């Protein structure tokens, strides 16, 4: 049975409708990819799941409960944790303090400072520095580590590749592969399809706020994905 189920989700920014009847689901332990062009509504889906948007309670069901509309901080306590787009590192906090903020709710689980430092040794070496002194790739590591510190049941990762070199992006996806292998459910959003398709067991493609394609990566041809992505 699904751990997370999004049902007929519609979302609005003021009078602008960003999502139309989007439905998706993720089983426990599954990695789900949400792809689509810029402005297709991918981030909006993640923000709705995280409780950061005012949607109806029934639109998001997590572990059998209706949780749509948040509040976001309570969903973190239940295990829905977001690595936000653009990393959003807290500039006044050191690297280690940024990680500790991730553990604010004190959810029990396998992740600790020591384990995050094992995963990203570069963060351990720079633990005392301001978080925003790190390079873009390192800040993305910090954002992922901060999310893991919350011991997520579902990790939502928004645009991990944003502004990063392909090699760095590949290394980050390697880390995510290691994390999801341990059983953490993940929903990954990206414009860059190549890496994400190798990781995901289920793919949803969004176009203009609606699901244009869904399936298992092995069943989908490049041609069908391109058609769903660009609408050609």
């Amino acid at each position: 049975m699904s751990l997370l189920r999004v049902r007929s989700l519609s979302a609005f920014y003021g009078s602008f409708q960003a999502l139309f009847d989007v439905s998706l689901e993720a089983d426990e332990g599954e990695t789900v990819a949400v792809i689509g062009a810029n402005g297709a509504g991918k981030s909006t889906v993640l923000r709705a799941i995280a409780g950061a948007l005012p949607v109806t309670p029934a639109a998001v069901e997590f572990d059998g409960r209706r949780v749509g509309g948040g509040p976001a901080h309570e969903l973190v306590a239940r295990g829905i944790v977001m690595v936000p787009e653009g990393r959003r590192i807290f500039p006044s906090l050191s690297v280690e303090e940024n990680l500790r903020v991730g553990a604010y709710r004190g959810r029990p689980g396998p992740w600790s400072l020591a384990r995050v430092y094992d995963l990203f040794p570069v963060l351990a070496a720079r633990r005392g520095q301001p978080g925003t002194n790190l390079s873009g790739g390192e800040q993305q590591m910090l954002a992922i580590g901060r999310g893991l510190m919350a011991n997520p049941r579902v990790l939502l990762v928004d645009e991990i590749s944003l502004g990063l070199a392909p090699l760095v992006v590949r290394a980050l996806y390697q880390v995510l592969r290691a994390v999801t292998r341990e059983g953490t459910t993940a929903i990954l959003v990206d414009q860059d399809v190549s890496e994400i398709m190798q990781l995901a067991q289920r793919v949803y493609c969004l176009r203009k706020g609606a699901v244009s394609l869904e399936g298992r990566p092995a069943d989908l041809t490049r041609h069908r994905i391109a058609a769903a992505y660009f609408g050609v």
Partner: protein
Amino acid sequence: MAWVDTVLQGLMLGGLYALFATGLSLIFGVMRVVNLAHGDLSILAAFVAVVVVEALGLNPLLALLLVVPLMAALGFVLQVVILNRLLGRGILPPILVTFGFSIIIQNALLETFSADSRRLNPGGIETASLSLGSGLAVGWFPFITLAAAVLILVGLQLVISRTSVGRAFRATSDDHETAELMGIDNRRLYGLAMALSLGIVAVAGVFLGIRTTFAFSSGPDRLLFAFEAVIIGGLGSLWGTLVGGAVLGIAQTVGAKLSPGWGILTGHLVFLAVLLLRPQGLFTRGRRIS
């Protein structure tokens, strides 16, 4: 020697100003909100102390044990029940609402306690003095005030830099949306910040009431001095607030020594000079808060 004495007195007066300013600075640092009722809330705390002292026959310094938690609880309730409703609606609504609080508190105090000036009597300590040799002496009470200000600032600094709540204050101040996504309940956190702020301003109000007379209308002046101390020291910097309080206190006592009518004016002039020459304040580093 007389000048050394003047500066010393000013420094200790600065301790009191720093106490008033700390709560204002904390609230601005965490929420980016200016609490215009801050001064009136300190006077409210002094009147609460009057009631406690009269009802229980306590020394006002002991009454702090009751007044501080009461004011902290009031702060939490005010924030959670009323001020949190104004979040995300721009800077004007909190200013208008706290200005309204200011007027309500003053009139409620006038109705309840009349327009008479009051004073809190701590039983002799307010006139005792401590000799420092070579003709210098400082009053015990101003000395205690300064010591309390330093202790409270050190304590607050430790809370902000070392504890989970302190990290949450800084994270929320940086980026409240992302803080919420990390599991921080901003509304409750703002309640805690207001509770801390009013707990500290309660100490300031009671110390003020021991040092000098106060009445229902004494609040706005306190707010003005607190503002000046915060701006001189640099917004959001706690140590800056202590230095800002000291600079303002010294300016006022030195001015008053030059001519008795010049005390407050000299404080304002120093404030204006800082605003002109170093508008970011004396102690602001790159980042705000703490």
